[in-house]
């Protein structure tokens, strides 16, 4: 499922949907690469990015790595995961990623 991308008040929001297993994550990353590829490197640091996981019901290690990867492209705490399912929030906590990403 392609990611919906919206920009509002300087924040780029990516709406993910479905299972972010290996297949889903690979597909998502293709979309992310297209969007990030069009942004100049020096502008990335100041950008605020939001990954909306409202319609995501499963995450894999691949997806978590994607989140990590893009969190490192922007300034600290400038990538936030929002609307996470309770179990998915716990998943990110167990994985220790709450120390690197903001997780709603």
């Amino acid at each position, binding site marked *: 499922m392609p990611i919906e991308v919206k920009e509002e008040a300087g924040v780029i929001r990516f709406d993910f949907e479905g299972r972010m297993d290996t297949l889903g994550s690979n597909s998502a990353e293709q979309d992310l690469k297209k969007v990030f590829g069009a942004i100049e490197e020096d502008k990335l640091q100041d950008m605020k990015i939001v990954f909306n996981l409202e319609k995501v019901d499963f*995450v894999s*290690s691949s997806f*978590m790595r994607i989140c990590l990867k893009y969190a490192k492209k922007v300034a600290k705490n400038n990538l936030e995961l929002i609307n996470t399912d309770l179990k998915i929030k*716990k998943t990110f*906590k167990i*994985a220790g990623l709450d120390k690197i990403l903001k997780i709603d």
Partner: protein
Amino acid sequence: MENVEKIANQLLENATMAAGVFNLLDQEQVNKIVENVYKAGFKHRVRLARMAIEETGLGVFEHKVMKNTTATHLVYESIKNVKTVGVLSEDSHTGITEIAQPMGPVFAVIPMTNPTSTVMFKILISLKTRNPVIISAHRRARECSIEAARICYEAALEAGAPENCVQWIEEHSRDLTRACMSDSRMALILATGGTSLVHAAYSSGTPALGVGPGNVPVFIDKSADIPFAVENVLDSKTFDNGTICASEQAIVVEKEIADEVKAAFKAQGGYFLNKEEIKKMGEIAFNKEKGVMTGEVVGQPVQKLAEMAGLEVPEKTTVLLAPLEGVGDEYPLSHEILCPLLAFYVKDNYEEAIKTCIDLNYLGGIGHTASIYANDQKVINDFSDLMNAGRIVVNTPSAHGAVGGIFNTLYTSFTLGCGAGGKNITTENISAVHLINVKRICRRREDIRWFRFDQSKYFDESLSTDEIAEEYNHNY
């Protein structure tokens, strides 16, 4: 070696991510993964046994196959129906509901004596409880251990397990082992190995389930079926050339039945060493400076032992027996020696025999295993009461008996807890149940005594303990 911290960090980062994903799986998904892993390990049991023998140079090929069979087939049978996800129990009377929670990344240390079997055992119990596992192989069993881990990992992934649910350390390094063990993200260490390894695990700051050394005494009582007892002892002691830590180390009998026991051993290939031969064997089997058995004799067959000590023994000898007078450093062969060699004690009476068993038990083997052959329940009970052992195996081969699941209903395990004696936290055979953190929902269930009792009486020093207790329990 590439920076140790970097490697440890990557292993733990992978493992914690896997732990996060594992947490999302339900019991059915977990069971499917475990079944697939067991089947894959079982399928490769013979090849892995061959690899283990070729790489370590110790043990017996057929017995290594049986160890792999136990570690897959029997371990699977012992855990397949165990609930490890979600609600474990619910009691409306007590109001307590128990829920399973995984622990997190497990660091599995693998011994040289049972490499592939311990790998598969630890992977099965870790995956059953949704804990990612990192395998740390012994440097002398690296390839076969990693191959076993690889087989299990591929099977796990195929069944839907998260990526990196199984990892392994490619190159052995003490520094890397220490870095992993002490990493704050590591949840548990399964430490199967020598005393120094277990000590390092417990000192790392990460919770650990370790093991201890054994020095298994076998008391053959007057009431025992002697040929049966000797046959069982030999089956166990010769299994994999005596590499299992729970194998028999010393036979203790009363004078009254000594001749019969000796005859039974001789009839089944036992060779009794004379004083000179005992001295020579002691020199090659025991390191006096370090106070432990030498590595060279571990898992070696009888003929090789004889050759090393410069002895000549009959070709069909199954086990060497060393008649000894005492226990301790002056009698090197009274110590734990993992090969087909048994100390042999003849004592005047029951009390002297049991005292010898106590001495042997306390000579480096407390908390591990003790063995008795008897058909007198009082003797069995008294012996068990006196032994400091996590498992007292009765009328069964000690090695197989201690591992569990074959001759008794203990958990089938390759990690045998030795309790305080072995500086371990439990005396149990470690299994899946030990790798779960149990959470308890505690609903309100008032103790009526507390709520109806006039608590001002606790401040009245004139009332005695008995008076307060009586009133507290009144009509209860």
